[in-house]
């Protein structure tokens, strides 16, 4: 026999439980925000002093007071820009094929789907080795901006494909059927209603993937990004360096002055990431307004 508990006791227990869980969740948030805040404050304290226009416009130098990040900043913009140009169209195309055209019952489709999901979890260094073997050596592209962008494209394609598929799936079938029932072909249905409605989701996923690519250093060492260069890239077949590479280079030096400019580099990197994510949010809001 169970003991009978009064309604009020049960209510009190429930409310107490509610409070306890609320506290647990609150503290998890506070812990993660604190860690982030400490990091950011530390970086700002060390780096703000060295951060000025000269720092952005100068070449790297072995003398920290004269060193700047221009080649790395431009290299990052070149590589990420090219990566976007390659990976977004390929990713959207793949997603359209898989979601609209492919026979979903075929073993090929199933195998492909599982593989794409798995590829998203492969460590980035593996893509670096792949890029070195295929792009740099086999295709003889060399350690250039193009090889770097191709490697990063491979790295983020799974993420772009998966988020694009989800965005396309979210378009109501009643809308697609409405278009097809008007005698509009499959392709024009895709360009007419499916893509416009899926754009916010696709762009958000793509830009978040790109901002992840921006921070990658490990695979880029493999495909030949240089730690220290004093020239600017001006074609996709040039050699290059990247912000994370330069920051890594600086942090590995013993002098305190280099640690300070590394922190300044990190601030620039964070601003760049913030700007990209802001773009994602703006694009999403704009396209969403158009759709609703």
């Amino acid at each position: 026999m169970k003991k009978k508990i009064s309604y009020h006791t049960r209510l009190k227990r429930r409310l107490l439980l509610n409070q306890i869980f609320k506290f647990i969740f609150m503290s998890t948030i506070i812990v993660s925000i604190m860690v982030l805040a400490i990091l950011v404050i530390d970086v700002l304290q060390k780096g703000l002093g060295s951060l000025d226009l000269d720092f952005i416009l100068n070449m790297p130098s072995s003398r920290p007071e004269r060193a700047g990040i221009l080649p790395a900043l431009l290299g990052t913009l070149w590589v990420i820009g090219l990566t976007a140009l390659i990976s977004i169209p390929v990713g959207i195309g793949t997603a359209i094929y898989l979601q609209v055209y492919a026979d979903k019952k075929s073993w090929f489709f199933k195998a492909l789907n599982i593989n794409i999901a798995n590829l998203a979890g492969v460590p980035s260094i593996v893509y670096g080795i792949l890029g070195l073997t295929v792009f740099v050596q086999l295709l003889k592209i060399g350690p250039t901006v193009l090889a770097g962008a191709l490697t990063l494209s491979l790295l983020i394609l799974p993420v772009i494909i998966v988020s694009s598929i989800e965005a396309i799936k979210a378009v109501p079938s009643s809308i697609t059927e409405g278009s097809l029932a008007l005698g509009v072909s499959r392709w024009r249905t895709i360009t007419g209603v499916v893509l416009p409605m899926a754009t916010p989701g696709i762009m958000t996923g793509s830009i978040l993937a790109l901002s992840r690519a921006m921070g990658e250093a490990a695979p880029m060492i493999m495909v030949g990004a240089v730690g220290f260069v004093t020239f600017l890239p001006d074609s996709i077949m040039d050699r290059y360096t990247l912000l994370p590479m330069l920051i890594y280079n600086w942090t590995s030096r013993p002098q305190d002055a280099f640690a300070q400019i590394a922190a300044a580099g990190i601030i620039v990197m964070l601003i760049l990431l913030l700007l990209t994510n802001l773009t994602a949010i703006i694009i999403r809001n704009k396209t969403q307004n158009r759709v609703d």
Partner: protein
Amino acid sequence: MQTKIRVENLNFYYGNFQALKNISMEIYENKITALIGPSGCGKSTFIKSINRMYDLIDGAVAKGSISFDEIEILDKNTDVVELRKRIGMVFQKPNPFPKSITENVLYGVKRHGDVPKIEWLALLESSLKKASLFSEVEHKLNQSAFSLSGGQQQRLCIARTLATKPEVLLMDEPTSALDPIATAKIEELLEELKKEYTVIIVTHSMQQAARISDYTGFFLNGELIEFGLTKTLFSTPKDKRTEDYITGRFG
């Protein structure tokens, strides 16, 4: 009286399940044909086979013959894009595109590319007028279609279909999501539309079928139990099951 669509021995399968059994009937030009019957009796499947919308469903197979003028609809080589331009469809739930009212109406013609640009404006107006929506929206043609009420959205969907100049209109319970006033408006509209178009309408409401249609077909468990003039079918049904259904003994 001209036959517009001739259905002969139509059998329809979803995988192993047979949804339509040996249906034969004729759809007459410029008449409204209503299809009635309880849920799951196959009436929606039937109209989906007329514009080949079942192509989108995995494992759906239609056997037999549906001829439409000179075309065999069920033929694999029939151009469904061309077919669906000539046989338009209005769905159960209004499904306007997330675009402006103008863009909704001109959606089809802009993508078919067979109407010159200078005629678009006239087509927009005439389509909205035919769907008796023009006076309600003429001052806000560039607003989103979602700003309209449910009944207006459904008439917009009708206007959108009319703009592609179809010969036949398939309507799958077009008023089931609407209130009585919006329903009455659409029923009035159908009366006008049949002068120019051949209409096939699936409806849950027997009163609606009796009010608006010239011919009625009664479906039950995938079979066409009875088909004939609406007046005759409702006053002197030949089959016991039809009589039971229309007198409300089941369904």
